[in-house]
């Protein structure tokens, strides 16, 4: 029986061994994407039955045909202790918008350059898509939201090329 990762009596980090380790060989050409979605988090995710679920956005609503408002999840912190809020969400959007074609699957995941994201308050952001973009939630699934430290130390820049194009 696997020891719960949340710890035994001490509640600390488990002692890792064969009893609580799963070894996987994933020869898929998109195994990099599985690693990404096992380690990064986005506004929404897709569950094991293939259905969209809230994640770092606790919910969302289309205010009108061009405006999506998202509830930024409250009382959430990154592993490095940084508090997650609407400014962090906006930082992730600003970072991805710096590049022409950051997503390996292709430009269809890009937000148009005229997409605007405004912080309404600490727990609300509003995205405006001139002309409409019902694909927004699909695109948000690919917009990773890490802590500030990630951007400062790594980002998605390929050290060999110095660019994040095709490297998100």
């Amino acid at each position, binding site marked *: 029986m696997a020891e719960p990762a949340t710890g035994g009596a001490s509640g600390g980090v488990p002692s890792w061994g064969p009893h609580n380790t*799963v070894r996987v060989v994933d020869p898929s050409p998109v195994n990099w994407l599985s690693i990404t979605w096992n380690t990064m988090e986005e506004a929404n995710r*897709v569950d094991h039955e293939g259905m969209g679920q809230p994640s770092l956005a606790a919910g969302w609503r289309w205010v009108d045909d061009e405006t999506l408002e998202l509830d930024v999840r409250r009382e959430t912190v990154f592993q490095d202790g940084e508090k997650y809020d609407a400014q962090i969400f906006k930082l992730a959007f600003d970072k991805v918008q710096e590049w022409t074609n950051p997503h390996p699957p292709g430009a269809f995941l890009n937000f148009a350059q005229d997409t605007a994201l405004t912080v309404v308050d600490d727990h609300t952001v509003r995205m405006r898509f001139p002309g409409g973009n019902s694909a927004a939630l699909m695109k948000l699934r690919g917009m990773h939201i890490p802590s500030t430290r990630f951007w400062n130390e790594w980002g998605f820049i390929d050290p060999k090329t110095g660019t994040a194009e095709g490297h998100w």
Partner: protein
Amino acid sequence: MLADGISTLDTRSPQVVLEPNLTHWNPGRIPKVRIIYENAIPKEDAIKSVAAGDGKVDVVTDLTPAEAHAFQGGSVAAIHSQPAKTVLAGVFNENKLDSPWTSIEVRRAMNMAIDRDAVLQQGAHGYGSVMPAFIQTGRYGADPKLEPYKLDEAAAAAAIEKAGLKGREILVLASPDWEGVVEVMTANLAKVGLKVRADFSKTEPEGWDIKLVWHFDWSPQYPVGVVHREFFGNNGAHRAMPEDPQFDALYAKLLRTPHQPAQEEVVREVERYVHDQARALFLISPSTLFAVSNRVSFVAYDTCMSELAETTVR
């Protein structure tokens, strides 16, 4: 779809070790195990390891139907078949010189020539399902009134003959993973007067006729953006036909329809359109296949991603 040179990593660590984030906001999704991706073990050896129960590998992803069918795990391991959001379809090369595939009658005849049950049962060892076009029955966007093209060899043969294609050799490209599927297609198409020359070399020789493409839908209920667009959209990586203004107009309509249930109705409209136009040679939705040690309680994702938050050791 992903492309070599962009998506394929050119370097990788022999192992990637994932440990749970114990401070995650959602305690219900904190993994109960550590995951180690073994990148240096070849797939064939990994499958043998799972079958032998030697403890070196617990899970192998992405088995082909043939590999899953041949797997002998005895009491220590088994095949996990997941009915994932996948598509296996033939792309018609409408761009080749004097392409016969620009004809809707011919494309429909090709769809009527295929015995999808045989493709599934014989070609893919039963691992998957038959579906009308690109969305599985019961999934978001599926049209309950839409049915797969019915097998009608006589009508297909008549249309092939009328188009002057009887006796023609056609070049079918496919991954070796789908050799069984191509064998069934070859037999099916022979019955309507076409001879298949199969090419499993993963190259794209000029003048090819049909290319088998496997694709998957990882999206939160947006199959047209991830799958249909990739095959038929003006920026689709698999498109082998002139731009289709009708498809592009439907996609633009979808983009302007954010609210449910109206959005799902547009998805159904797209699905009906590509089906009625026989825009592809519709085949099956293959299951994703895993070799899994019995010591693991494995939860697979319908997205085809090996997300493992719910997987545990028994």
